[in-house]
């Protein structure tokens, strides 16, 4: 009886000729082996930390330095000017950079880092004002999901008093910006338009709620200072508001859009062309890390929490990080609920860079005017294919299958995968998203741009 790894290796050896026929050449030595990756202090940077700590990068012959960045802009500039070789990025960043909203540069992503993982938190005062509007369950706790409809009277009362209602998000092209906007608009609150062609990139035209940028780790402090009344951010910064007693998370992004794509790993196109082997090897290491994070029904999550709580990674207290990483989420203090899929790193093909995910982000950029002109469906697909690179992903996955670390059923069927998920209908406002028809999708929203130019 051979040990399991040996058996797998034997199987891999048997498979090698088959894979060779399908065009899988063995991946050569990395062209560049000393790399620096950037990240923002959020729990969803975990695959990078785990790939480092578990030695997956070293297994690929990569010597990686991981550096925390001050904010998303600094991080993006670092990747563009080459100080960073790659980074934990907002899904909107490679897309926006490639189409030239903000700094223009061709960034690609061969790897999606996770699903879900964000939440919307409001200050205690706002929560007290909204709470009477929310229907209660038999046990007295609020019924979830909490829609922005209940926030609307609060916002109206602030406006009536002449106080602008400010909320924070982390970056103009962040998931958080689009999720917060989606939630607000689904509740009839206008989050404001961008008009880059007129030089207006504040995103506050016609707004009921004024959104502005605050770096994730500063969110709780800014909320406490009263500059904003709520925010949308990744973990651990929602849970920290609960721990510090300064705010109440009202909804997670899982409830806004079930299993929404979150961060991606971004590199420049130039990097991927100059260092193809290195690129594939990075994806291999990240894939192994993602798998480890979700393995055996999240069995490794506590170990991951310990690693993430070290000061060089996320650095927040372990119990704060554990709250969301281990499948529970604390809303109002004491109201802890099970959200097993709050952070998904690997299952549901979470790491595969779906074109349809890219199209959704582009559709939201168009909806809020970041893309000033209406575009054809073909344009959306073309941009998605320039930025999202399942071809690189597939190479890495095949290599891992070949080496026995993974099995084919852990991945989409590469031969028949179109890159477009089937139409998704699990949104808070019950609108269905079909990635193949972005323009038809946009027409369904009561609030948001369609064919018009502001």
């Amino acid at each position, binding site marked *: 009886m051979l040990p399991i790894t040996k058996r797998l290796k034997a199987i891999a050896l048997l498979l090698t000729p088959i894979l060779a026929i399908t065009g899988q050449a063995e991946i050569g030595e990395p062209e560049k082996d000393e790399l620096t990756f950037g990240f923002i202090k959020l729990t969803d940077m975990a695959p990078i930390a785990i790939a480092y700590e578990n*030695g997956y990068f070293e297994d690929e*012959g990569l*010597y990686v*330095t991981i550096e*925390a960045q001050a904010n998303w802009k600094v991080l993006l500039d670092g990747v563009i000017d080459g*100080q960073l070789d790659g980074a934990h990025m907002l899904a909107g960043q490679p897309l926006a950079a490639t189409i030239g909203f903000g700094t223009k540069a061709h960034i690609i992503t061969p790897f999606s880092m996770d699903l879900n993982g964000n939440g919307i938190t409001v200050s205690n005062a706002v929560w007290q004002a909204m709470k009477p509007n929310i229907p209660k369950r038999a046990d007295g706790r609020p019924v979830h999901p909490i829609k922005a409809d209940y926030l609307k009277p609060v916002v109206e009362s602030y406006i009536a008093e002449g106080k602008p209602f400010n909320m924070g998000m982390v970056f103009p092209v962040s998931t958080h910006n689009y999720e917060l906007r989606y939630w607000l608009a689904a509740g009839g609150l206008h989050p404001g338009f961008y008009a880059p062609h007129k030089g207006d990139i504040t995103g506050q035209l016609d707004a009921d709620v004024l959104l502005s940028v605050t770096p994730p780790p500063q969110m709780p402090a800014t909320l406490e200072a009263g500059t904003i009344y709520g925010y949308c951010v990744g973990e651990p910064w929602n849970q*920290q508001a609960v721990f510090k*007693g300064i705010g109440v998370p009202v909804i997670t992004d899982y409830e806004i859009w079930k299993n929404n794509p979150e961060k991606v790993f971004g590199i420049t196109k130039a990097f991927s062309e100059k260092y193809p082997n290195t690129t594939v090897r990075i994806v291999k290491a990240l894939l192994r890390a993602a798998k480890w994070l979700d393995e055996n029904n999240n069995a490794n999550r506590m170990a991951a929490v310990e690693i993430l709580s070290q000061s060089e990674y996320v*650095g*927040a207290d372990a119990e704060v990080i554990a709250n969301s990483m281990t499948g529970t989420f604390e809303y109002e203090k004491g109201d802890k609920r099970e959200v097993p899929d709050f952070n998904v790193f690997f299952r549901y093909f979470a790491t595969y860079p779906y074109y349809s995910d890219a199209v959704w982000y582009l559709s939201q950029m168009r909806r809020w005017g970041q893309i000033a002109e209406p575009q054809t469906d073909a344009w959306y697909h073309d941009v998605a294919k320039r930025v999202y690179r399942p071809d690189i992903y597939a190479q890495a996955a095949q290599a891992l299958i070949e080496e026995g670390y993974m099995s084919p059923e852990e991945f989409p069927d590469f031969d028949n995968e179109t890159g477009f998920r089937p139409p998704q209908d699990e949104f808070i406002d019950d609108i269905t998203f079909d990635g193949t028809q972005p323009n038809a999708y946009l027409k369904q929203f009561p609030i948001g741009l369609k064919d018009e130019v502001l």
Partner: protein
Amino acid sequence: MITASLNHLKAAGLRLPHLAARSIIPILGISLFLLVWQIVAANIDTSLGKFPGPSQVWQQTKALADEHVQQRAKAAKFYQRQEERNAKKLAQDPNATIKMRAYTGKPTFWDQILTSLITVMFGFALASCVAIPLGIICGLSERIYEAVNPIIQVLKPVSPLAWLPLVTMVVSAVYVSDDPLFEKSFLNSAFTVALCCLWPTVINTTVGVSSIDKDLVDVGRVIKLPPSTHVAKIVLPSSIPLIFTGLRLSLATGWMVLIAAEMLAQNPGLGKFIWDEFQNGSSNSLSRIMVAVLTIGLIGFLLDRTMLVIQRRISWDKQAVLR
């Protein structure tokens, strides 16, 4: 009351053993400070817990020292793994090119201190190389001084952080090399420091040179000293005290500027350490920041004392009171 007892102590100081007398008052002051700190800290509630008092700060100092030891152990393992990997590679292919890479783990607190010290020294040396000659020229020639002075006066009050974006952009545009000798972040910090610690030295050197005793200058003129000898034998020695005053001010400014620059630009060093801890927002963060604050103060103090010692060595007037 306190002044009275101070006066009393001062008088007693003449009789008491010298060292003991001199250390009593500082020790009293420090103990009082620690006491007040502990009491005040216990009454400040932040969202990250109580403000750290001396005991929490001491704990974190020890924790940081432990982390340093742990990181070094991790680094040793890293090198061991790398050697094994290289050996394996050589065994497979004897012609394979292998190399050792530097440890990729995080810099510890002590590493950050060292980085900051090197950076400030580099920036300071750079600034001094420019500032002292410029100051001498301005001091020697009234006309040049009048031409340069307005520029100095305008640039002097500029905050270092205003320079930082410009320095960053210029460095990343101009300093392009495949195998750079220095990290860009190091140069950014060092140049920002240099820009800010130019001015005190320039101004003080100018004043020092222009206020040399007229008799000395006249003597030089009478014995027809060539300009270079004039500078070396008369100008420099007599303006040393003021040059050093300038250098000490510069170094102090540079040290303060560096921390701010590191915080803002995320360049390695103590400033980044503070910013990272602030962003972590863990229950130990405030204590760790406090450790850094005290370390910065202590190093600033030691830097100044070092300059003072050098000044005493170099200055010809051993009688002058330096403080």
